[in-house]
């Protein structure tokens, strides 16, 4: 069975090519993550470039160029127009450089709590809404436990070996037993 890779850059890294060439090619691929995301989002919406172009009043060529542009050359205006065409809301997030994954998870968890608090505030004074928001909290809790549990289950942790602890009193007893066995022999 041949080796399986999770990305094209991983395939490239596995090849016996000059290091500088591999780097240039990997950089080319990595420099287009944002424009690539646009293509993926459009495909998820089951929309062709032509349909997106019609919605935006652009030519198909302009869409095609945007979807292969270097990320540095993509303008915020283009992103806003594109997200409108896909009926998506765009938000920009700035995070501290080199932030750990665990800290990111904590940020998202806090963001979720903030949104839940907004729902609580909005529902105040309306019995029906309060009931619904209360039920939604249950739903969130169950889903979260199930999702985090699934992620944990996907890990293959080896069972820990049991530790044998022997204290001085047991050692003394063991020596006595051994001596007695030798005496009998």
């Amino acid at each position, binding site marked *: 069975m*041949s*080796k*399986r*890779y*999770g*990305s*094209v*850059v*991983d*395939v*490239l890294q596995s*090849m*016996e*090519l000059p290091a500088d*060439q591999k780097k*240039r*090619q990997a950089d*080319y*691929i990595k420099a*287009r993550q944002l424009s*690539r995301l646009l*293509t*993926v989002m459009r*495909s*998820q919406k*089951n929309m*062709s*470039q032509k349909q997106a172009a019609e919605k935006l009043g652009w030519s198909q060529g302009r869409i*095609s*160029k945007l*979807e*292969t*542009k270097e990320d540095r050359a993509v303008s915020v205006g283009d992103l806003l127009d594109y997200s409108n065409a896909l009926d998506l809301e765009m938000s920009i997030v700035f995070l501290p450089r080199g932030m750990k994954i665990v800290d990111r998870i904590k940020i998202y968890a806090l963001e979720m709590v903030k949104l839940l608090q907004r729902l609580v505030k909005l529902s105040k004074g309306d019995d029906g809404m309060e009931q619904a928001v209360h039920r939604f909290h249950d739903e969130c809790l169950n889903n979260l436990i199930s999702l985090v549990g699934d992620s944990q289950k996907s890990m293959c942790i080896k069972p820990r070996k049991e530790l044998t602890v022997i204290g001085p009193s047991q050692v003394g007893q063991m020596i006595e037993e051994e001596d007695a066995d030798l005496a009998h022999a």
Partner: protein
Amino acid sequence: MWGIEQYTGFENQYKKFVKKHENEASATLSNLQTYFEVLKETNNVQMANQQPFIHPEPEGMVAIDQRGAKIEKKPGKLKATRLYVYATVVNQTLYLLGIGDKDSQKQDIETCRSKVKRIKKEV
């Protein structure tokens, strides 16, 4: 979960191609990554095959072109490139079959076609 596999002979063919046409190869690999991400996110080969850089080929394989490549030295002198791949949802694998230009297209398609037939038997 989707993964990429290089089918027998792909790496050697790629190494030969990239020596002469690095810009085209980089753009084609970038389009390949886009194709792969659409596959991963939609799990829909038909949807992935609708991308403008995709050309349908026999046996369900497709060819990815160099669209979007940088034109640095000689404008308009980019070599029309075809990277042949075959995606199957059965084992969620994207097979890299071969790469070449228009001059070798006929031969490349024949070679890759027989590779796809073998893959279909193996999967």
